């Protein structure tokens, strides 16, 4: 066979011929780094003493990478890298915009705190069964979901983080963990399958999986495509992943069962990936359908907020109480998405970032409190304030932050969402946000009064007099973040508003994937 004449084919139309700039490698590095270090830790699985320092070092590097990536995105707008030299929309594109970079940075922060906390709280058997490799692979999935610009690739990262979360969830194999894992695993698998169904239809309609391509085509071909059906499927799938009201029962059934640091990581990372994906798809790809569905999302948001907060009030086990608070926070984010606009979506992004830090810290604080007072049950706990005033003060900061009190980080996003809701005349939604803050205050206030103020009911177990150093280190760091963000909200406020307008008007995102309008 004769070789085709080289002059007949212009490769530059199909392939990237110039190698990507060195700085562009930052786009893929967080994922590649997590996969590589996860693989190395897996090989060192039996070396239980080497694992924590190595994993913490790897997570520090991940944090630095994500910070550099965010800095680059703030500096020069969205960045794209295409895999395998194929030009988009054929190659799988990783596109990072401000929203993705912010989420990636905060997720790395949460993971680092979790890695430090786990150094002393996960025992040798937990390490041998792969806590740290699972953590790194979970971070690969989470970072990949935040950074990818391809919707099928997003599905793949969802599955990567899901299978890692299964591994973390059953670490310890107690009957209650198995029970929680059964419900978590089945329902989450169904949710990601729903997502895959939606992706299948999307491919059938558009013939492309590249998000920038879809965003541009959805605007051109709206009207002759059943985009509403697609939108409903995506809202249901991501709502289930994010634990929105009618489809959230897997969360309170499972989040209190694993090791407390695993719960903390799940609360910080998993549901927020669902929220991120919902924002990405319903705000950026299908804004018109997102608008039309806004009442459905708003109703789900209100129910999620109220039932989450009421569920928290009804619990006596502090870990289960926190599971309901995670749900209630998801409601606030959904309310922001439903309201829309830079205020609403920006508020949802801000609240998600706040919630990542604070919910993780709250689970960690509960772990410390449970160890010190010997019980997670509010009927039996008590006397923490008399024993460790500093830890109690940290917990109080977190309690106030989660209920949205100034001057902590929970205050500003709630103000943004409530104000945006009032601006469009949705008084009931703004009122629900405020009422939720009040109910949350009751729930966490009671934890404070019973477990901290009240004199101890039971004598302390021997050898558990003081909190562990690693736990206090990560807890203080996260509490510091919520205080700093609360006191100086301006930098983050500007970034989330810019991220929200970048999602609502994705021309910079599209241009980064298709330079000089080559689509």
């Amino acid at each position, binding site marked *: *066979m*004769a*070789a*085709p*004449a080289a002059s*007949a*084919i212009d490769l530059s139309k199909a392939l990237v011929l110039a190698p990507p700039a060195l700085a562009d490698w930052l786009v893929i590095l967080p994922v590649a780094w997590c996969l590589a270090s996860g693989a190395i830790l897996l090989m060192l699985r039996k070396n239980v003493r080497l694992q924590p320092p190595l994993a913490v070092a790897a997570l520090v590097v991940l944090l630095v990478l994500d910070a550099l990536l965010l800095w680059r995105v703030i500096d020069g707008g969205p960045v794209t890298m295409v895999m395998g030299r194929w030009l988009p929309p054929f190659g799988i594109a990783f596109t990072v915009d401000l929203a993705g970079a912010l989420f990636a940075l905060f997720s790395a922060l949460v993971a680092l705190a979790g890695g430090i906390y786990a150094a002393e709280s996960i025992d040798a058997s937990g390490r041998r069964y792969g806590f740290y490799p699972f953590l790194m692979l979970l971070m690969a999935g989470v970072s990949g979901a935040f950074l990818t610009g391809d919707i*099928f690739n997003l599905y*793949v990262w969802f*599955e990567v983080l*899901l*299978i890692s979360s*299964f591994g973390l969830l*059953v670490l310890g*194999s107690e*009957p*209650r*963990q*198995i*029970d*929680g*894992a*059964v*419900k978590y*695993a*089945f329902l989450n*698998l*169904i949710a990601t*399958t729903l997502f*895959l*169904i939606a992706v*299948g*239809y999307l*491919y*059938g309609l558009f013939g492309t999986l590249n998000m920038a391509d879809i965003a541009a085509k959805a605007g051109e071909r709206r009207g002759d495509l059943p985009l509403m059906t697609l939108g409903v499927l995506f809202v249901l799938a991501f709502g289930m992943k994010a634990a929105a009201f009618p489809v959230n029962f897997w969360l*309170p*059934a*499972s989040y*209190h*069962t694993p090791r407390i640091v695993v719960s903390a990581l799940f609360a910080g990372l998993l549901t927020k990936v669902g929220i991120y994906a919902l924002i990405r798809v319903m705000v950026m790809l299908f804004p018109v359908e997102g608008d039309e569905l806004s009442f459905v999302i708003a109703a789900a948001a209100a129910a999620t907020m109220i039932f989450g907060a009421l569920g928290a009030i*009804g*619990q*006596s*086990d502090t870990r*289960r109480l926190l599971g309901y608070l995670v749900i209630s926070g998801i409601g606030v984010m959904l309310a922001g998405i439903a309201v829309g606009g830079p205020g609403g979506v920006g508020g949802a992004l801000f609240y998600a970032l706040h919630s990542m830090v604070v919910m993780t810290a709250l689970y960690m604080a509960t772990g410390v409190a449970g160890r010190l007072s010997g019980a997670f*049950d*509010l*009927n039996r706990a008590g006397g923490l304030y008399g024993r460790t005033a500093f830890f109690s003060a940290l917990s109080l900061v977190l309690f106030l932050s989660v209920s949205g009190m100034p001057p902590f980080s929970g205050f500003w996003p709630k103000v943004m969402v409530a104000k945006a809701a009032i601006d469009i005349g949705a008084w009931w939604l703004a009122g629900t946000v405020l009422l939720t803050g009040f109910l949350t205050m009751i729930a966490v206030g*009671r934890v404070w*009064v*019973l477990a901290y103020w*009240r004199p101890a009911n039971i004598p302390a177990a021997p050898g558990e007099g003081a909190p562990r150093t690693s736990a206090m280190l990560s807890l203080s760091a996260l509490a510091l973040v919520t205080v700093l963000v609360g006191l100086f909200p301006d930098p983050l406020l500007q970034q989330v508003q810019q991220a929200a307008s970048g999602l609502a008007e994705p021309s910079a995102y599209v241009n980064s994937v298709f330079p000089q309008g080559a689509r």
Partner: protein
Amino acid sequence: MEVPFSLLIGIFFAAAVYLMLSKFLVRILLGVAILGNAVNLLLFTTGRIVREVPPIIPAAFDHQVAVTANPLPQALILTAIVISFSFFAFLLVLSYRAFQDLGTDNANEMRVAEPAADIAPPTGY
């Protein structure tokens, strides 16, 4: 060919949903397996069904000259099969462990994590 395939997929989905609504883990597992196959067929159909013509560009051309099979849905399905297979394997082991540890495969009776008799929090200080 797409219409009969759509009907077939509908039957698959209906069977999967029916099985997953059961409270017994084994039936839910079967439902999940059928659901995975339903989705794979769906992906296959959304790529449009043509005869088995390999998508190979003849020499001396820079584009396809005949209607060929769409390779992308097949790549998607391959990914989805691998993922759903591994998840199914995990769920199978998890269900077996649940049966061993909890002594039941009835989801209604799995109340270890969320006990039926919930302890209410104290009402007073």
